[in-house]
Structure formats: C-alpha cells, structure tokens
C-alpha cells in the first residue's frame, strides 16, 4: 500500500516539474545509451566474426599487391611490379601449401545497359576457380570457365541483375551490357552473398568478366592483378602457407611485395576496431553516468528543499524516517529508470548506426537491455540515497515551519 502510494506520488512529483526532470535525465540517457551501445557492439562483432568463419572457412588467404610503401620510389615500383597471370597460375605448383588460387583484376570504366549507366556496378576480371574459392553460387545460367578466356561473356551479381530488370531487361540471361567500346553478353547471375572481410569486393554489385578479357581490355594505367584469393591445402597451417607465398613473390624472378591476410587477422583487426569503440563508449558511458547521477542527486536535493513543509506534515501524520527516505528513494529510482529507458532506445539506435557504418549485421542483445535497467536502477539508488537521507533526518518542527 505504501509502495503503491509512493509510486503514484513520485510520478506526480516528477510530472509537476517536467523541465527539471528532463534536464536531469539527459546525462543518464547518454550514459546508459553508451553502455548499451558498448555491450551490443561487442555482441555484434562477436557474431560477425563467427559468421565470417562460417561463411568463408578458415583456410582462405587473401594476397594483395603492396602499393607504394611511402618511399619516393613507390610510384615506379607499382608500375614494374605487375603480377603476371602465369605466375599466379603457377602458384599451386610452386607453393605446396596452396591448393587453389583465384586472381582478381579490377576493371575501370562504366557499364551501361540500353544506354543507361549502371552506377553501382564495377567490372571484375576473374577465373573459373573464383566462384568456389569465394564460396559463391550461381542462381541462373552458368559461371565463366577457362574456356571463356578472351570471350565477350559476362556474369552479373544479384544486385546488378535486379538493376537490369528495373531498367527493362525481361530475362537477364542473354541481355547485353556495354562497357567502354565492348559489348558483353550475360551468361549467368550469381546468388546473393554477404560482403565480408574476406571478400574484398562487392560480390552482388559486380560484373564478372574472364580475367584474360579484362586484362586485354584494361588500359595501360591498370594495376593488373591486384588481389588473389587462395585456398590453403588441407594439413598446412595458414602461417606456413603465408610464408611460402611471401617467399614465392619475393623470389628474384618476380621481386614483388605482397601482403597476405588470413581470416584470423581480419577478425583480429575487427576486434581491434571493436575495442576502440568499447573504450570510447565505456569512457563516455561512465563519465555521463556520473554526471547523470549527480544531476539526479541535484534534482532530488532541490525537491527535498522545496518539499520541507510536506515532509513535516507527513512526519506529523505518522510517517517514520524510513517512510520519508523510501518515498524520495523511489522518486530518484523512477527518475533514473526513465532515463535508462530512453538510454536503452538511444543505445540501440547508436549500435545500429555503428553496425551500419562498419558493415556489420545488427542484432539486439537482451543482456544489454537488462544491463541498462540494472545500471540505471543502481544509479538511482546510489545518487538518490543522500538526498533521501537528508529528507528523512529533517526535524519535523523545523520542516513544518518552513515555507
């Protein structure tokens, strides 16, 4: 009964000074919001790295050509250091740790359909092994084979296919796309897949040509083969395979600098990124929780001062010190919980935004919400206790005489 009455009283009292209530809440909202965002970003990243492993497996290495290492000669180096297709094809033979390789050439130039530009689509030169290594599948038609070398066939990603349909293509297969001065006939569409750390391209927004075609059509300024995705042979560790690859490209015959990354590294990098968010959000969170708590305390102290007469009346009517303390404590807890509620919404919004910009899949963490409620409750009790105690220790006579 007392509890129910106190809850009602607290709500009334907070409503009667809305402006003050809202101002006091801002700190709590930001604090709880940051804590929620911190926890759910952690959760999102954890899930994301698991998904990466599941999606691509742990036996994939990405080999990328090193571009200019900031020294003066870099420009010259990148010109001379073109990776030759023959070298790539020879890799599985030369490096025992390599099971299969899929080189990639990024084409330049804009593709168009029916005279309309396909803005999002980029041109990629690939080989037959590309599909399997990148764990992609075909949804319509067929993929390029090495028999299609030098041909004018292409395969499009699922988003490109949708764009084409929007631009009026009845059936995507057999339609023709123009890129520069060349016309390509579509022979297949790839199924939609996630764009993840190991797929260093937009799998759904690309137009795939055969590598040889792409190399022949590309201009002088092209970088040639920039990326190679490789599958490590069973029984070979990623580190061994990586050393072999580095040695292979560093050999005098080639003399190229490459960077090799494994799924572990990408996940480690992601976790580092997450740690940064965690640190930032943790710092913001704890500072604003303290500021917010002090705000709550301030509001409650003002409230106690304003309501001295009320406290005196209640004491005269038989309220014990504990009753008065409880009344004000409930008020500060409600205030903090209210802040916590908005903070949870704010935190979910913030983590959603972070996930969006980091290209992670958003998910809602129930634990984070529970934590938000718990922490705001604790803030309310911790920072509300002192004002509530002050209220309960007021001398009834002094309180009654005040105005």
């Amino acid at each position, binding site marked *: 009964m007392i509890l129910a009455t106190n809850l009602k009283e607290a709500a009334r009292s907070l409503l009667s000074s809305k402006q003050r209530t809202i101002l006091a809440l801002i700190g709590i909202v930001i604090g709880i919001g940051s804590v929620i965002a911190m926890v759910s970003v952690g959760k999102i990243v954890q899930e994301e790295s698991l998904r990466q492993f599941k999606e691509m497996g742990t036996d994939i290495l990405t080999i990328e050509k090193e571009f200019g290492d900031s020294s003066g000669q870099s420009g010259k180096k990148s010109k001379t250091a073109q990776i030759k297709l023959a070298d790539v094809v020879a890799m599985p033979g030369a490096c025992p740790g390599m099971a299969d390789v899929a080189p990639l050439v990024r084409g330049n130039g804009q593709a168009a359909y029916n005279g309309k530009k396909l803005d999002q689509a980029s041109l990629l030169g690939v080989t037959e092994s590309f599909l399997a290594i990148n764990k992609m599948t075909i949804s319509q038609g067929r993929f390029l084979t090495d028999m299609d070398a030098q041909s004018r066939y292409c395969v499009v990603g699922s988003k490109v296919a949708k764009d084409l349909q929007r631009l009026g293509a009845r059936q995507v297969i057999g339609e023709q796309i123009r890129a520069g001065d060349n016309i390509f006939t579509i022979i297949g569409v790839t199924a939609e897949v996630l764009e993840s750390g190991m797929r260093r391209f937009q799998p759904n927004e690309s137009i795939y040509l055969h590598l040889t075609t792409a190399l022949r059509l590309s201009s002088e300024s092209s970088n040639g083969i920039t990326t190679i995705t490789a599958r490590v042979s069973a029984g070979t560790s990623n580190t061994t395979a990586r050393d072999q690859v580095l040695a292979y490209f560093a050999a005098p015959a080639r003399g190229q600098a490459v960077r090799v990354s494994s799924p572990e590294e990408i996940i480690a990098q992601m976790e580092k990124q997450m740690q940064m968010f965690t640190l930032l959000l943790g710092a913001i969170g704890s500072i604003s929780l303290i500021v917010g708590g002090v705000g709550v305390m301030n509001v409650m102290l003002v409230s106690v001062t304003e309501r001295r007469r009320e406290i005196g009346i209640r004491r005269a009517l038989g309220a014990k010190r*504990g009753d008065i303390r409880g009344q004000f404590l409930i008020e500060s807890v409600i205030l903090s919980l209210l802040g916590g509620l908005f903070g949870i919404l704010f935190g979910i919004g913030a983590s959603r935004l972070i996930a969006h910009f980091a290209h992670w899949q958003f998910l809602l963490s129930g634990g984070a919400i529970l934590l938000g409620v718990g922490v705001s409750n604790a803030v309310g009790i911790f920072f509300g206790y002192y004002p509530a105690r002050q209220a309960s220790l007021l001398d009834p006579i002094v309180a009654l005489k005040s105005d």
Partner: protein
Amino acid sequence: MLILRDIRKSYRIGPTEVDVLKGVDLDIHKGELTSIMGPSGCGKSTLMNIIGLLDRPTSGRFQLDGADVSYSNDDALSEIRNRRIGFVFQQYFLLSRLSAIENVELPLIYRGDRQGFTRERSMELLRRVGMADRAGHRPSELSGGQQQRVAIARALVGAPSLILADEPTGALDTKVGGEIMELFHTLNREDGITIVIITHDPGIARQCGSVAVMNDGVIVK
C-alpha cells in the same frame, strides 16, 4: 489520559540558554474539550509540539493513555503520533498535489492499512465533516473553511485518543471560524473525542469546557 508533570524545555541560542517552558503541570481528561490560551511567546506552541510528540522536553514526565512517552525513540514517537494524535493546524497543511480524500487517507497509509479500507474510512470521515461531495477536489479548489474541515477529517481518520488543534480558526473569518468551532463541539459532544485547542483568542477559549491559561512558560490558571 494526558498527564504532564514539571515539563521544562530550554533552547540554546548562541551562548545563552533560553527557558521556554519552566515546569508545566497539566491534566487533561478523556472526553474533555480543553483550550490552552496565552499571549504569543508564552510557550504554548512549544507545549503543543511536546504534547504532539513533535518535540521532546528537556526534563519532566509525560504520560499519554497511561504510558510514559517522554523518552521514546523517533520511530516509536512516529507510531504514537500516527495512532493516538490527530493534528489540526492553523494553515490546514493539506498536501497540494493530493485530492481531499487522498489527504485524509495519509495517516492510514502510514499505518499500513489496505487501500479498500482506507478509502472507505476516509469517505466516512469526509461525510462526518460535511465534505463528502468534495472528496475528489484538490485543496486549491476549496475555501479555507472547507480545507480546515478536510484537515479535521484527516485528524480524525485514525481514531486517535487526542485531537490537537493549533489556532484552528486563526486563518478564517469569524463566521467560518464559528462553524469550525461548532464542528469541534459536535465531535466532542457526540463522539466523545478529546480535543485540545491552542489559541490566543479568549473568545475561542471561553467556548471550551476547560481553559488553561499560560504565561511566561508556566500555566497560571
């Protein structure tokens, strides 16, 4: 039922000790309508605070309903205030955010009674003071006389042994003040409620069954 023996109270103001009550002896019997009268500054407010258990005497014995309450602890005093004493103040002291009936309910809530009961009982008391039709009104929507009636209902709701009224008509005009005094008489006559009225007004004091006159910290008559 109320026995005060040699009650003394002194306050320390700076370096000097001020004796406000200098040995008060007072007996109030059950069912009496008593007034304590005296000029301002004579110590009657201090006496009322002590009788109302809002303050403690420096020395002396104080019995309420046969129990010595002079030196009980704070929680025990709250409990006695809640169950045995009903306050009526000059400024009514209703809580402005609560409706009339919610104000009347308060003593019962601090007693821990069930909500159904507190509502019913409060309504009964509002009816007794003629305020049943205003149960849902806020104090600001009531006149002074009406507020004082609600305050009297609040004082009565817990069925206390003693109603302690501090200048209950002080903020009201003569006509309304007369009505409030009439209500006290009715409650005293019909329900046998013990009432102590503290006043500086000899007119009010004359209406009471017995009068204790106070001057300079002692009861002189």
